[in-house]
């Protein structure tokens, strides 16, 4: 039984410096923002003001992050460690939060219920994500994780009159609680064997841990790693922990789904990477095999599951399973040298994925707003949006359809889009690491994936509804606009066009000239030669 004291226990006297304060300023801004929002609500309950404040908070947090991007890594107590990668991930998180804020207004307006908590919860989610991406300790991981999850549960079931609200919320709550129990048990096991809750295994009780990482001989430690990974895999909806994904994606309000698809994925993956890399997981062959297996299963089955799916939100849920499977490739590094390239690949991939997800959900929200029938709640319309309901969109709203096409192409990893460059990163990574099975699964998965991605695109191009139907629709819309003038007015939200155009522009620029983003990401690490990964013979 190990008796020596592990270094840096949770309660230790660490000087809290200004630099540290600065380093976590974005997170602090969000936290401060929450308090501010509460005060605002107490002062005046205004939907627009709160939305504005939330957006402002996220924008300020984003701006505050920028100077931190190329800083050296700064440990903030033992709980957090701010480095470029984390900051970049936080910016992704924050940007997604901003988009969700902007897109939620319409939805909330249609709901007569109270909506103040919505923005609070949203800010909590972002805070949780913000904590996750910079955490360096299981305790902070746990805090961030739960902050994010519990706030999300609240948001998932926010519109309690919704058709699927209770079901979705319950599924998410119970399954997520189960998963976090698994993760916690895993952490407990790891802690019991290492004596440290710190990510890094240096100076812990693990045999031979003075170098980074070691093959695990201890059953409980291995089991702990497995359970921890299972908990994270649940959040990343990797096969075989993916069951909840489509149901929750479908049942949650679309902006919340968007949040889950972006913030939750980015934050979880970032922290998983940090943790696993710090633990030197790449020498634990069992874990590597396990992750490879999970990756392959996710790539193939995620796509297989999406194959004939008609419901768009479910389909995107399945597609996210496959994407997290692809992304898992970067965890399968073979040595320290790979870490930087793995980070670059992961962050580029996540950026592409976030951009694509935001775009496609944005189109989903906008199109359902327009096609809303009287007496139908927007949430319900969105839940039931099928591929078919986008039929002929291209001929009616070319810009929006173009954004959707670009997003789908990006998800499918076809040139002209960021997704292709992202896939290029992954393939480069995988072929250097010699992960032939994963490449094979990626190819097969992409092949299957094309089938449903193309179905979406073809639906956009398909002939619009027959004239009769269209006429009916026009009449109905006329009726609805007569009835509720407010709805009509808000239908022409002026930012809509700006947003869509902006996203199209961003997608094209990053797709055609990815160097803009690549340079930023490659400078985040700055520690080693960015392409050192290529030095190894495959």
């Amino acid at each position, binding site marked *: 039984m190990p008796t020596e004291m592990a270094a840096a226990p949770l309660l230790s006297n660490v000087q809290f410096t200004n630099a540290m304060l600065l380093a976590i300023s974005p997170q602090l801004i969000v936290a401060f923002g929450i308090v501010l929002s509460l005060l605002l609500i107490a002062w005046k309950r205004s939907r627009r003001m709160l939305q504005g404040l939330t957006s402002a908070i996220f924008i300020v947090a984003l701006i505050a992050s920028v100077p931190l991007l190329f800083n050296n890594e700064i440990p903030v107590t033992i709980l957090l460690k701010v480095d470029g990668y984390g900051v970049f991930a936080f910016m992704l998180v924050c940007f997604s939060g901003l988009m969700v804020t902007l897109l939620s207004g319409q939805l909330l307006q249609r709901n007569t219920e109270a909506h103040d908590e919505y923005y609070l919860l949203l800010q909590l989610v972002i805070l949780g994500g913000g904590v996750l991406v910079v955490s360096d300790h299981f305790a902070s991981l746990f805090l961030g994780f739960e902050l994010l999850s519990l706030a999300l549960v609240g948001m998932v079931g926010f519109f309690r009159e919704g058709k699927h609200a209770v079901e979705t919320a*319950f*599924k998410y709550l*119970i*399954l997520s609680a*189960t*998963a976090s129990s*698994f993760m916690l048990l895993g952490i407990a096991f790891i802690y019991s064997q290492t004596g440290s809750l710190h990510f890094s295994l240096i100076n812990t009780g693990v045999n031979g841990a003075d170098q980074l990482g070691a093959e695990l001989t201890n*059953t409980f430690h*291995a*089991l702990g790693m*497995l*359970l921890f990974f*299972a908990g994270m895999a*649940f959040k990343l909806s990797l096969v*075989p*922990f993916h*069951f*909840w994904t*489509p*149901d929750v994606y479908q049942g949650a309000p679309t902006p919340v789904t968007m949040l889950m698809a972006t913030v939750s994925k980015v934050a979880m993956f970032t922290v998983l990477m940090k943790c696993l890399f710090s633990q030197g997981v790449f020498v634990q062959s*069992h*874990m590597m*095999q*396990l992750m490879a*297996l*999970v990756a392959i299963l996710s790539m193939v*089955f995620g796509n*297989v*599951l999406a*194959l*004939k799916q008609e419901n768009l939100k479910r389909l995107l849920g399945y597609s996210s399973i496959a994407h997290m499977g692809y992304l898992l490739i970067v965890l399968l590094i073979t040595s320290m040298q790979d870490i930087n390239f793995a980070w670059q690949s992961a962050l580029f991939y996540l950026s592409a994925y976030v951009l694509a997800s935001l775009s496609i959900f944005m189109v989903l929200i906008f199109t359902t707003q327009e096609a809303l029938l009287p007496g139908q709640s927007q949430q319900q319309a969105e839940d039931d949006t099928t591929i078919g309901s986008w039929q002929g969109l291209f001929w009616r709203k070319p810009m929006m359809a173009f954004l959707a096409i670009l997003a789908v192409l990006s998800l499918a990893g076809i040139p002209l889009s960021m997704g292709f460059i992202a896939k290029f990163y992954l393939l480069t990574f995988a072929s250097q690491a010699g992960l032939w099975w994963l490449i094979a699964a990626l190819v097969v998965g992409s092949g*299957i994936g094309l089938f449903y991605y193309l179905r979406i695109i073809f639906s956009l191009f398909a002939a619009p509804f027959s004239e009769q139907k269209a006429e009916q629709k026009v009449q109905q819309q006329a009726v609805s606009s007569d009835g509720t003038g407010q709805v009509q007015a808000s239908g022409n939200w002026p930012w809509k066009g700006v947003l869509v155009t902006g996203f199209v522009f961003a997608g094209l620029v990053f797709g055609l000239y990815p160097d803009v983003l690549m340079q930023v990401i490659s400078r985040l690490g700055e520690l080693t030669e960015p392409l050192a990964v290529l030095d190894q013979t495959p």
Partner: protein
Amino acid sequence: MSLLAWIPFYPLISFLLLIALGRRLSWGLASTLSIGAIALSAISSGLVISQLASADSGIISVKLWSWFSLGSAEVNFSFYLDSLSAVMISVVSGVGLLIHAYAAAYMKNDENFSRFMAYMNLFIVAMLILVLADNLVLLYLGWEGVGLCSFLLIGFWYQEKENVLAARKAFIVTRVGDTAMAIGLFLLFKSLGELNIAAVNVSASSLWQIGDELPYWIALLLLGGAVGKSAQLPLQTWLPDAMAGPTPVSALIHAATMVTAGVYLIARMQGVFLLSPEVMSYVAWVGALTLLLAGVAALAQKDIKRVLAYSTMSQIGYMMLALGAGAWSAGVFHLMTHAFFKALLFLTAGSVILALHHQQDLFKMGGLLKKLPVESGLFIVGLICLMALPGTSGFFSKEAIIATLWSSPTAGPVLWWGAILGALLTSIYSCRLFFLAFLGASREHDKVHDLHHDHPTVLLRWPLFLLALLSLFGGLISLDFTEVFAVASSVDAAQEPAWLHPLAIATPFIGIAFAWFFFKSYRDNNGEALEMKPGGLNRFCGDGLGFDWLYHSLLVRPYCFLAAINRRDIIDQLIMFNGWYVRLWHDAMSASQNGSLRWYAAGIGLAVVCLAGVTTL
């Protein structure tokens, strides 16, 4: 450009004009154009041949342009005239001219007249290129060109299903031979690096010994091409069906010119063939078997044109036999005389058919001697040439062939007897044809159509007279091939039995006598209906000795069957099976997404247990 180069050019211009202007041309213009073009070709041919006589080398050649090059070997668009090709161009343009003239009259009332003449002109172009080509690729161009024209002309009346099928069959069957020939060219090029005919003949004899393997294969493959085009065994089946085309077509393509292209090819490539005595004897055997088979088949035909078609096959068999036996000149000589008399026969038959309102069934004719005396006379001339009665052109050429057979190293007595038997058959079926059609009393056609009512007499008659003259006296033309053909091994006539020649001369008469008695019912018919005896043997022979059936069940049906069962592409099905398989997985996986929370939780637990198992194992 030299005169030689112009020869195929006139009909080409005419073809283009006819195609471009189409139905806008009146009959007069169209026929003038097409006949005029051929006439120009014929005149130029005559002039060029007279130049040839004065040329020192015995060769006139002209290079039009460099076509392409195979490695270091140039393949040029150039023409080459020696005495062999001189004979060919004179036959093609001469007989072609006469047949064109006749055809213009024959087809006058067809709505697609100018298209018909255009095809005929194109055919002459291709045929002239074939015989004038100085290299095998250009020859192949002509070779395929005549095949295409033959296809077009057989299917000229495209609205009838049989014609369409006959055209298809003719093209595809000859294509089989062409492919063999193409492979022969590949082999030839690989081994000699050259496709120029003269150069090939020279370097073949300098590089190879007699009996080498390479010339054997090359010659065999070229023979494959020849049997396809010349309707010899085993690719003979298309010719009888090809009679579906208009009669002038049968006369021009399927009797006088195109079908003899195989003979020309072998004669042209004699340098290679001489190196392979085995293939020479194959040639002889192919010829002999074909001539017997065709003779037997001709005995059981109902259709006047089919009799003539089998007769053509049989006569080409003689030419092949001659080539195989080394009697090159005799073979080519027979080619020429055959062109005269077979064109005559076909054209006369055409007149008869026209007069009988397109009745071709011999058993429904009869008594035409009285009704169509001129045509009957011309037909008799053709038939006696075909039977090779002494004095006619056919006599000279056929006797020349038979005379060489007995002691030729690549032929021999057996083939001699085959040739005699063939001659016997020839006279028997000729008599049968004549008896059925011209003797006795008319069976169905009491009224004979007045040919000259709407067909110009001059064009319809005069070509026939000219052809009759050529048939009768064409044997007097002497051909000198010493420049072209290597001197055949001298035949030691002393060792041959003395009765050979008398027997050969007597054979046709024996045949006539036999037919006179055997076909008495045909001869003495009084107008009662006649039927061919329905026996199995008759049917068997009538169908060309079962080759059609054989090929149909051995090749056509399996190919169609294969095509039919695999219409949906088994490989595609196999690949698309993956799609099915993935969909199966999709269904299975979708079933696991059953919406039950407890099931999902259990799934997570199971997954953890399984992964733990995987990890620890």
